[in-house]
């Protein structure tokens, strides 16, 4: 019989699904709960030679509902995610058997790790994943400052 791990005891039903899967398939796999407390949206930041790349998971968002602004080295992402019932009209609460997906207003600010070219910032949104490209500023060459004597 499978024994539930204590740290996941808050959701026995989901654990049961996993354990059933594991028993049926006989395959071990690593699992990480997606509902661990974390900021929304979850972001990853990468550095490349010529740019910084920020990725954010935003399933169900529409491009027109995304608002990206940058000021003083802080990038702000804002948006609103509609509840799932938008296509079908209002669904009474008691009709829901399960409701796990977050919705509502959200906002997140991210400090940019280095100097970037704010005018050349670009973003793309595919399959619910937002990618923001932040090109690095060209390194400025040291500039000689002439010193005049006080004579």
């Amino acid at each position: 019989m499978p024994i539930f791990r204590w740290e996941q005891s808050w959701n026995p039903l989901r654990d049961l699904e996993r354990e059933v899967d594991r028993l049926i398939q006989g395959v071990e796999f690593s699992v990480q709960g997606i509902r661990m407390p974390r900021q929304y949206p979850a972001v990853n930041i990468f550095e490349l030679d010529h740019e910084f790349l920020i990725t954010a998971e935003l399933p169900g968002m529409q491009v027109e509902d995304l608002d990206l602004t940058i000021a003083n080295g802080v990038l702000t992402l804002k948006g609103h995610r509609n509840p799932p019932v938008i296509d079908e009209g209002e669904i009474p609460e008691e009709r829901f058997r399960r409701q796990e997906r977050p919705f509502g207003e959200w906002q997140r600010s991210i400090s940019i790790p280095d100097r970037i070219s704010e005018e050349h910032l670009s973003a793309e949104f595919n399959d619910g994943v937002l990618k923001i490209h932040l090109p690095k500023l060209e390194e400025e060459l040291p500039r000689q400052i002439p010193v005049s004597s006080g004579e």
Partner: protein
Amino acid sequence: MSRQPNSDEPREIAHPEQFVFTPPIDIYETEQGLVLYADLPGVSVNSLELQVQDNKLTLLGRVEPQIPEGARPLHKEYEVGNYLRSFILSGEIIHSQIEAKLANGVLRIFLPKAPKAEPRRIQVNTG
């Protein structure tokens, strides 16, 4: 230990060996059936497998890392991995008429219910 699929058996969804996540879902009931929404960011129509076998519905969304080569992670809040979730369907769902649509990383599955049979009066004859 994994079973090898047989050509004349329904294909078994292979479990990937990297990160596997349980996607968050909403399920609600309408007169016509059940509607299920699942968040699957990074999954496209080509990388989604949905399967009904016996009374078990399995969804597997495969996510390929889309980060260019040589990108150095500075900050990481989520892992890229696949999504897997299984559901046991009740007998009243018409399996052959399940519909699914994927848009912007959200999967919507409609599970139609068979209409309830009208109660039929049974004549009792006297012996």
